[in-house]
């Protein structure tokens, strides 16, 4: 008869999935609690338990929670979008950033225009020259670059789901 001692009642999610005994110094146990089985399942599917273990061993203990959360995020993104993973999210953010930079440059030029006309009246000729000079400072409108290569609509789906909430990770 199997001894009760060989079956841990407090196995972490990793050891439960891997069907092994969860030891007191199990590297997964602090970060993959038994009430979050899906978290480890996703990470395991994408990276594999062995690779995750190696990554965790390499980082200081106080940074392992952040490491696990970022791995979980990447794994989830990869399962949701097997082609691009969270690169799709990055490309979306890059595109948004480029657009914002463009809008900001526009707004600043417009503000300069108002400031210039407010301080002293300018002729139509001056206005043309000023506008041309101001537009010359804009970043050229982008077609998307890397984003264009993502013909998949995965990142469009991602627009409806906000970035994973890393409440534990400091927002630098």
């Amino acid at each position: 008869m199997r001894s009760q001692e060989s079956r841990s009642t407090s196995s972490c999610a990793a050891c439960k999935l891997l069907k092994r005994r969860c030891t007191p110094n199990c590297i997964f146990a602090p970060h993959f609690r038994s009430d979050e089985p899906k978290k480890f399942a996703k990470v395991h599917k994408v990276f594999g338990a062995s690779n995750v273990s190696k990554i965790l061993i390499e980082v200081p203990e106080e940074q392992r929670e952040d490491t696990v959360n970022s791995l979980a995020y990447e794994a989830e993104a990869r399962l949701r979008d097997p082609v691009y993973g969270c690169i799709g999210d990055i490309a979306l953010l890059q595109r948004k950033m480029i657009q914002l930079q463009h809008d900001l440059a526009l707004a600043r030029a417009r503000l300069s225009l108002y400031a210039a006309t407010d301080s002293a009246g300018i002729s139509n000729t001056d206005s043309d020259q000023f506008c041309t000079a101001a537009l010359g400072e804009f970043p050229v409108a982008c077609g998307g670059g890397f984003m264009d290569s993502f013909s998949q609509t995965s990142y469009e789906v991602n627009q409806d789901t906000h970035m994973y909430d890393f409440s534990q990770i400091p927002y630098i």
Partner: protein
Amino acid sequence: MSSGRCAACRYLRRRCTEDCILSPYFPSNNPQRFVSVHRIYGASNVTKLLLQLPTHLRAEAADSLYFEAQCRLEDPVYGCVGLIFMLQQQIHAAESQLVKTQAEIAVMKSQGQNPEAQQAEQDFNNLLLQQSDNDAALSFPNQVSSGFI
């Protein structure tokens, strides 16, 4: 036998068959590419992932896996999620700046209604329209294989 092996099979010390799924994406002239991906994902996981994709999407998938693997090797704690955080922060700062600038414009607009300002803005808008027409004809090269950051 060994001369025709892809980087993956060379690293794994196995025979590289004609239908090796990894060989198109891990050529022998770039061994580091497979080493990086293997260290983070493992050959088995990469193979499974590529197998589930249609052939025309596998190159992009391999590229994105390589990029993520490189990010993780450089930053074992955050990987490419660190990039996401950085971009989010930059976007937040740019949005705040934009709101502030637009508020300043609104103030200046409400203060000064002189004809020169209105004419200048109209000229400005016309020039913008012209530029956006020109920009519509621009196309950017595909930057997937060379990275995009």
